[in-house]
């Protein structure tokens, strides 16, 4: 069993948070030695969904994959791992991990709230180990999970090196519509108002950005005008100087104060007032960040899709989307991915209708919607069971390859980190799983988990 003391773990988190500076002693501030080489040999390397190499090896240097293939030999002195299958580590795009309960359930977050600032460094090391045992190597940490506006979510590794714990500080914007607020169920009018609030927030971000662009243009225009005026004045500088001196004299004779001549170019355009929330929303409105909206009821999904239609740049992702099936065609057409929480959920009351269809993921995928899978943003350890939930979704009709894609490259793509995570390819970060069998099967137990090039978990007996 790979032993990491809690002190070491905590120090990594602290270091990542910038607080490590004052605590950094050689013993505490453990970081990977430069030049660390790891060679992983397996019967099968799943490069990406649908692309597999038989009897291949993966070579990792300094946390990055430098070679993948059947002929990759182990350099001298490299640490060697073997297993049946190597694949990319799973990414949970919807978790409650990494935050204290108050940050997670905070309902007063705003668009500029950064979840990365709420990362909890004192997480139970056993939870982290469980998480890695479940194959999850990266997660979206999202404060204000049930707030109307949760703010900026971060993508973090599951206990990696201090240096690169955070994969993306600002991976997405999160909002929600129609959830219970303060354990109080919203009535239908409140819920519709929340849909409007999403659109209004994006609208304010959009106009903030427009104001800024307008200011930028005005400023450029002004600067140009000033330059031209200066040039013009330069030409008859002497005359102007004389005129000015004359005027000063005149003013003195009359005993008045001299007034400098005003040029219209003197009026510098004023910058729009800085607003962090609007700045963040502007990035969402402009498609620089994906927007993840948790919404469940059919009418709210419909209204949301309708009200965001004009924001063509917004990269909308739905989370939950319990009743999304009637809109599958539109979601597919508009390239809106859906993060499904495929947990088996029962009924609120014995006589109520089923609330969650375990086949939702499979049905959406079949209709052409990009399906992602998440553990539902619940507190704590639910992410550990993400691969079980994915398997269950497969048992309800989701293609196995689609489920695997959702957990790896799909999630990486949605959160703009597919240049680093999600596949086993040269140049990618080494966030890998070494399994005893195919992923999402009973045999596919995690033998080793590698995070940012470091072997962070090894199963007992290996």
């Amino acid at each position, binding site marked *: 069993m790979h032993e990491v003391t809690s002190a070491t773990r905590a120090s990594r988190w602290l270091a990542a948070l910038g607080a490590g500076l004052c605590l950094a002693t050689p013993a505490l501030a453990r970081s990977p030695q430069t030049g660390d080489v790891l060679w992983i040999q397996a019967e099968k390397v799943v490069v990406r969904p649908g692309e597999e190499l038989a009897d291949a090896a993966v070579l990792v240097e300094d946390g990055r994959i430098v070679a993948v293939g059947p002929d990759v030999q182990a350099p001298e002195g490299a640490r060697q791992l073997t297993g049946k299958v190597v694949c990319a580590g799973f990414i949970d795009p919807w978790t409650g991990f990494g935050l204290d309960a108050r940050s997670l359930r905070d309902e007063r977050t705003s668009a500029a709230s950064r979840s990365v600032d709420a990362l909890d460094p004192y997480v139970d090391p056993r939870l982290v180990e469980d998480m890695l045992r479940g194959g999850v190597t990266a997660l979206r940490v999202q404060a204000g999970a049930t707030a109307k506006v949760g703010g900026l979510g971060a993508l973090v590794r599951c206990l990696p090196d201090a240096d690169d714990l955070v994969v993306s500080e600002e991976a997405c914007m999160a909002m929600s519509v129609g959830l219970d607020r303060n354990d109080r169920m919203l009535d239908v009018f409140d819920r519709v108002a929340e849909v409007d609030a999403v659109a209004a927030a994006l609208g304010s971000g959009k106009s903030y950005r427009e104001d800024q662009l307008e200011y930028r243009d005005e400023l450029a225009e002004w600067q140009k005008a000033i330059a031209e005026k200066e040039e013009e004045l330069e030409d008859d500088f002497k005359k102007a100087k004389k005129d000015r001196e004359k005027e000063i004299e005149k003013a003195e004779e009359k005993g008045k104060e001299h007034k400098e001549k005003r040029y219209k170019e003197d009026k510098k355009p004023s910058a729009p007032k800085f607003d962090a929330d609007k700045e963040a929303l502007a990035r969402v409105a402009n498609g620089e960040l994906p927007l993840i909206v948790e919404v469940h009821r059919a009418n709210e999904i419909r209204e949301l899709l309708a009200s965001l239609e004009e924001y063509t740049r917004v990269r909308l992702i739905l989370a939950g989307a319990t009743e999304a099936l009637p809109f599958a065609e539109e979601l597919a057409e508009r390239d809106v991915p859906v993060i499904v929480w495929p947990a088996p959920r029962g009924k609120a009351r014995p006589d109520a209708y089923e609330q969650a269809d*375990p086949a939702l993921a499979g049905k959406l995928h079949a209709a052409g919607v990009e399906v992602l899978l998440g553990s539902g943003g619940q507190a704590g350890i639910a992410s550990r069971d993400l691969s079980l939930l994915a398997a269950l979704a497969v048992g309800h009709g989701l293609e196995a390859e689609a489920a695997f894609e959702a957990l790896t490259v799909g999630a990486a793509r949605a959160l703009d980190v597919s240049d680093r995570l999600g596949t086993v390819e040269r140049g990618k970060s080494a966030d890998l799983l070494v399994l005893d069998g195919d992923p999402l099967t009973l045999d596919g137990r995690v033998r080793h988990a590698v995070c940012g090039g470091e072997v962070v978990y090894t199963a007992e007996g290996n």
Partner: protein
Amino acid sequence: MLAFTARQSHRALRAALRTGATAALALSVAAPLARASDSFAIRGSHVVVGSGQVVADGVVWIENGKVKAAGADVQLPEGLPVVEHDGFVTPGLIGFGAAEGLTGEQFDSTRSLMPEAEVALGVDLSHRDFEALCRAGITSVVLTPSSRALAGGTTAVAKTAGNRLVSRDAHLALSFESAALDRERFPTSYGAAVNELDRRVEAGEGRFAEAAAGRLPVLMMVAARHQVLRAAGFAQRHGLRGAVMGGALTGEVADVLASAKLAAIVGPLSVGQSRRSLDAVLELHAAGVPLAFALGTPWRHPDGLRLDAAMCVRQGLPGDAVWGMLTSGAAAIAGVDSAVGSLAPGRDADLVLWSGNPLELGSQVEAVYVDGVPALGGAR
């Protein structure tokens, strides 16, 4: 041998059962049969027989709703309709602690002691919630009274299709949970509760007498470990047999259960279940305590049963043991193992046709037969 796809054959067989007109079937059966339901066979690429042996290319021969023979070397009479299935054929799953069709019938708010009550009298076996169980591959459930009743009466074992009870009095249900205590009515404390149960057993009347004589096992609901100890002590004091149900950390007192010769019903577990409570299940297994799973349906989705099983396998419980907990082991704890829980001659023909190994969550339920009758057929 007839060869057609499983889906077609299920459909055809269902139609046959509805009409009873075998001759009209597109099965091109050579020898005429009296009725399709009387006798047919299912051939699977994998058939799980007995207590969990997987037979490749096995056959289950079903006659009059019972298994006539099951295994690899079953000689089928010529002309017998055969359903071909590419996948696993297994006995139906069994879970404890279900409440389908029991809305409002699980407890009486004014009385905590109702040993003569019968869940069997309160259940609506035609309630459509049973279908959801069937879709999850569950063919028998142990219906239990609420843990709010100190003595809630007898549990029943029901089939999830066909409106049939396997047992009307599987156990006497007792609750050692704090839910059984109530400020407004007797008993108000653990002491009073245990004292009353002791007194009833010693008085030797009705269901308590049956339990004391060993004819009726007790199903003791527990949540915390101290309640497990109290229940085990009670059972041991009076020489009762039976099981405890519930309690995430019950396994941490596994030795006590083992020495009291009690079984344990674990779960319902949930997504994100703590490692400590999963390890506790392993301890129960290591101590040799007979085990089964709790369902918690309909409030929980029936698929939770297989999810719990998969969590236990991942935690290190052997697959065979977990399979037993889902089938024959559960049937034994419910005292109905002579009828359900395994594919062996004389047992009820409760079968599930899976696309693959049922312990794999990625496997789908493709057809379910209860008492030889298709309850769910073809791909969903």
